[in-house]
């Protein structure tokens, strides 16, 4: 009996060759769309190079001043000061160049992820069928271990920063899509009806009612996308994307606690600065249109 069970589980009869099928599919895609992937590769690479150049070429203090000013503008002088101190720490750890490579990767990957997830989120919000199709795909993208889709990414885009960007985009775009859909779907039905009742077209309703009212949720999605992108830098480092991830991987291979910690703390500093800055950006976008505190306020609070 026991033997037969053993033989049953190892029986080729019940072995579903799913992996092979996927492999075959990836092979087919690789051969059929080589041109397309070459175009994508050079496009992403050009984007990354441009951003990376802009961050690495100027002296570090110039970049720090620009980032700190931006932080101050988006949030508060406290964040501006924190940004200066944090980035100076990164410089003192001799991780400045790595940090800028990583920042470039995160910015490019986030921008692509947002550019993809916004339209997908809008589509999912407007069509129940689209929502039903997109949702499990997002689940798959988010829960499948990142290493697994790193393999086809490597095959399709070769070693370097591009597979890192692609893997990051796939991993990070899910919350962008989800929060955009959620934001648009939870816009007050009556307000959308009001748009319809005055004869507004669906496009106008989207632009003037749904997107502005969904903005808090969408900005939360943007924040999440950037944070998840940052969490992928180490994995991107494994495929040769460079930056801080590279040093973390190297320290893992050589059991170098010192290097590992220095690279790791740099990632943390970048994460905190980016998180606070996007939160500040979100708050600004959401409150746009509010007049400066002036004259007098309502006689009574509205009960919603």
């Amino acid at each position, binding site marked *: 009996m026991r033997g037969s069970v053993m033989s049953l589980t190892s029986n080729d009869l019940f072995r579903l060759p799913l992996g092979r099928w996927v492999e075959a599919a990836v092979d087919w895609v690789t051969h059929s769309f080589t041109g397309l992937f070459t175009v994508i590769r050079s496009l992403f690479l050009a984007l990354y190079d441009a951003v990376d150049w802009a961050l690495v070429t100027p002296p570090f203090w110039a970049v720090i001043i620009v980032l700190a000013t931006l932080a101050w503008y988006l949030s508060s002088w406290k964040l501006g000061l924190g940004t200066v101190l944090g980035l100076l720490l990164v410089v003192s750890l001799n991780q400045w160049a790595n940090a800028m490579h990583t920042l470039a990767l995160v910015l490019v990957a986030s921008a692509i992820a947002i550019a993809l997830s916004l339209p997908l989120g809008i589509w999912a919000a407007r069509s129940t069928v689209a929502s039903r199709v997109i949702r499990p795909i997002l689940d798959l993208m988010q829960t499948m271990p990142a290493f697994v889709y790193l393999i086809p990414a490597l095959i399709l885009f070769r070693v370097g920063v591009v597979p890192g960007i692609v893997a990051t985009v796939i991993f990070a775009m899910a919350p962008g899509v989800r929060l955009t859909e959620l934001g648009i779907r939870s816009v007050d039905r009556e307000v959308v009806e009001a748009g319809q009742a*005055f004869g507004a077209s669906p496009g106008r309703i989207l632009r003037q009612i749904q997107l502005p*009212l969904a903005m808090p949720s969408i900005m939360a999605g943007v924040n999440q996308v950037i944070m998840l992108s940052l969490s992928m830098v180490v994995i991107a480092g494994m495929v040769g994307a460079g930056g801080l991830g590279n040093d973390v991987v190297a320290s893992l291979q050589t059991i170098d606690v010192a290097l590992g910690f220095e690279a790791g703390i740099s990632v943390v500093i970048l994460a905190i600065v980016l998180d606070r800055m996007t939160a500040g950006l979100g708050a600004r976008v959401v409150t746009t249109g509010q007049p400066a505190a002036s004259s007098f306020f309502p006689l009574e609070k509205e009960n919603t």
Partner: protein
Amino acid sequence: MNESIAVQAKNLYKVFGKKPKEVARRLSEGASRDEVSALGTAAVIDASFEVKTGEIFVVMGLSGSGKSTLIRMLNGLVEPTSGTVTVVGTTITDISQAELRRVRQKSVSMVFQHFALLPHRTVLENAAFGLEVQGIAPVERRARAQRVVELVGLAGWEDKLPRQLSGGMQQRVGLARALTAETDVLLMDEAFSALDPLIRREMQEQLVELQAELGKTIIFITHDLNEAMFLGDRIAVMRDGRIVQVGSPEDILTDPANDYVAQFVQDVDRARVLTAASVMEPASAEVSVTSGPRNALRTMRDLQSSAVFVVGRGRQYLGVVRDRDVMRQVKAGETDLRDILRKPQAVSPDTPLVDLVEPSIESGLPLAVVNETGKLLGTIPRVTLLAALGNVPLTTQSIPIMESPSRLTRRDISEALTETVGYEAAAGTEHRTGGRA
């Protein structure tokens, strides 16, 4: 199409569910709502009515009676399962989305229960929304919105955001948005239901004024009987998806089409627990029967009233005397008020308000509120009753004025008094008898 008909609904059905068409067909063949409930939920069943141009047409019903669905079919926000809707000459039930949008821009706008303003836009931008959709240039639409914003009493608030405004003011913006669009027809979906009673009454009055000024055709949805009675030129009562009665407010109150309407009228008042005792006022126009006609006449003159209540010993309610009768008595030199006493129906203090409407209209005088022992407790002038029905407390202290304005002038009365006994009338008009401070 008849020009005086602004909106016409013909055999409208709306069924939600798996087989709406079949449900509608079976309902039209006489099946009840419950019989077809397995196939779908019928929200509106066989609704037909016509709204005349310049009329306030109120659709009244409890929640779940289908009134919100009905109003949304009138501008195509909800597509009817069957039946037709004609708005200002255009049948909107069989036209394309683009044409429907044009009808909404030009002919029919809407005010929503929870205001449905764009929170990121200022009052003026909200009011101009309809014009923006119509493609009117910014300068012109701002100017036109500005006029309407001032019309609804929001001058000075143009640059505020909706959240900086109170509920009543937000709904004024909603109203301004609908008026700025300059459509002939205005749909109002429970527009005042989310407001405080006091604000609600104010808004109702303003709406009536605006309607008189602008001559809009208004279709108003409410679950509030008092609101329906106050606003409606005609009222349609809905129940379980069907319109059970269409008529003037008087028809609905005095001649309910069926038990449901009667019950509804009763239910609403019971729910408010308003009785005669809760709205009555002290009787100021009141004289003792023994004080005689001359005193009664003087009281009427001082209070500028056409009648006074007459009470006996211990304020026993005896009846009412009218100015003309008293005048005749005074001139004839008679002395007993009992001879000319009228006895309109008196009510007990715990009579619900709904039962006061009919006697109040019949008698044309304030109602006397009398307890079991026959003592006069107070009076209910018709204005007080109406105010109570509208749920607005009267802020004035007391209303000594009787309903029908005095047909005798002060001078006539004074002359009559002077003729009979010379010196008394000169004693002064400030003199009050039987009145209360």
